[in-house]
């Protein structure tokens, strides 16, 4: 696989986050380069999801800044993050359960819909055409994720593994620059994990999407990531290629030494 890894697109600088007296993140810095797959790993409670939530604007860190495409922010706002081209999936699935697979993924196109409410309500030409174009795009995603058979099924009725795919599809529909995946393989069996890995690699390969993914299962991550950040108790204890990380004594004692 010959991939062109580009310049730094996302730079996290000295982020600290605490909830009351509990320090979730202490002085975390790392960067993400364009087109790479960057993993954040660590045992449970290491602060991985908190990190992702800072980038996504759900949490506001007390200290530090985040630079995205040259613009520096001390606070990110969820809606603004989405407009800038950062999409995410959720660890605990935050899909719109009552809506069909197609509608769920269509919501990902929301930011790109230009026609206004009245045009939509009256089904005036441009609104109708636009809807069809977006629908076509969404059909590609559905094909790509191999969920054609479930198009019209309410998402709440799908098995967990498929819901994870829909979650990914909704994020993809935004055509993001950077895709944040929060434990995309959690709770999956081996086969599902392999499918998901394949999707992540294909997304990265075909669309050039930069992927930041969180996992606590090291196995799969090491195979697909270009570089890995390791967190433990809210601190960064390792950063580098999978091989470097694997041989880092601190990582081994903190992470692998715990009996994984």
């Amino acid at each position, binding site marked *: 696989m010959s991939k062109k890894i580009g310049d730094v697109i996302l730079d996290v600088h000295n982020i600290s986050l605490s909830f009351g007296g509990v320090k979730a993140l202490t002085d975390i810095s790392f960067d993400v380069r364009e087109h790479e797959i960057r993993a954040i790993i660590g045992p449970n409670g290491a602060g991985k999801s908190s990190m992702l939530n800072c980038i996504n604007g*759900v949490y506001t860190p007390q200290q530090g800044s985040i630079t995205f495409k040259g613009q520096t922010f001390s606070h990110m706002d*969820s809606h603004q993050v989405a407009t800038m081209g950062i999409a995410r999936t959720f660890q605990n699935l935050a*899909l719109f359960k009552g809506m069909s697979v197609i509608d769920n993924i269509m*919501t990902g196109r929301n930011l790109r819909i230009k026609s206004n409410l009245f045009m*939509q309500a009256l089904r005036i030409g441009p*609104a109708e055409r636009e809807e069809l174009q977006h629908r076509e795009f969404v059909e590609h995603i559905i094909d790509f994720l191999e969920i054609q058979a479930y198009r019209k099924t309410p998402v709440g009725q799908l098995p967990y593994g498929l819901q994870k795919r829909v979650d990914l599809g909704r994020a993809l529909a935004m055509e993001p620059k950077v895709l944040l995946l929060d434990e995309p393989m959690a709770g999956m069996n081996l086969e599902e994990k392999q499918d998901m890995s394949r999707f992540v690699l294909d997304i990265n390969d075909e669309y050039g999407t930069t992927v930041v993914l969180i996992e606590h299962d090291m196995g799969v991550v090491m195979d697909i990531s270009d570089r890995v950040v390791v967190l433990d108790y809210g601190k960064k204890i390792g950063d580098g290629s999978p091989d470097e990380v694997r041989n880092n004594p601190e990582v081994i004692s903190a992470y692998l030494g715990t009996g994984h």
Partner: protein
Amino acid sequence: MGFFLETLLGGLMAGMLYSLVALGFVLIFKASGVFNFAQGAMVLFAALAMARFAEWIPGWTGIESPVIANIAAFAIAALMMWAVAWFIEYLVLRHLVNQEGTTLLMATLGISYFLDGLGQTIFGSNIYKIDVGMPKDPILMFESIFEGGVLINKEDLYAALIAAVLVAALSLFFQKTATGRALRAVADDHQAAQSIGIPLNRIWVIVWTVAGVVALVAGMIWGSKLGVQFSLTTVALRALPVVILGGLTSVPGAIIGGLIIGVGEKLSEVFLGPYVGGGIEIWFAYVLALVFLLFRPQGLFGEKIIDRV
């Protein structure tokens, strides 16, 4: 049999109007998790605006046609409901994001007093008339089938038709448009909706505007039946049992709940009334709601309440 049918139809038509008010509650609760105590005040405010503008417009423009005056008054009243929605979002809701449900409920209680006062300050506090030209005369149906036929109030029939069309239009809007999709998304999961770039603030303004327009239609119909007066706010209280019956999160629930309550009220009044001394119509809905609260608190179609311990 003819009499039974007559009562039943009367109940269905009255129920349709309850549904309309209940729909306002459900729309707002779904999209913003707020139990909007101000729904009744919104009905009064909208009805006052409609009644007064319909009265003023011929004087201002010199156009005497009541049709044009009514249409223009409706449009202006709808615009005002949009402004109200915008102000509520800007001044109240956006500052209370992530607060307890009770806090938001109290806030809407405040909004309700404010709107009551504002409406009567701007538009006056007498009893006003809305006349959209609904025919008052009753019609007789099924004369060949039942002895004496079935007597239907034409006004009720038209009102129920308008309510039905509005409900149908709303559900089409929710199901078939991109904005409707975004609204449903917000109703399902705020955080996920934000992460894909659906702007919560704008969605709230839209939802409150839609609820405002629903309040306007309800106010227009009730107003033309009873006159526009302060007691219109109590129409919202009548819709409360409907919401409990149908479930706070279900649009079909609001409609079916309204129909059940409407029919139940009329049938119980007519057929049980003589045995217990009448007046059932007034309390029937609340007792039914009480029974539901005891045995099925999520209502007929609401999401099941699961408490994690």
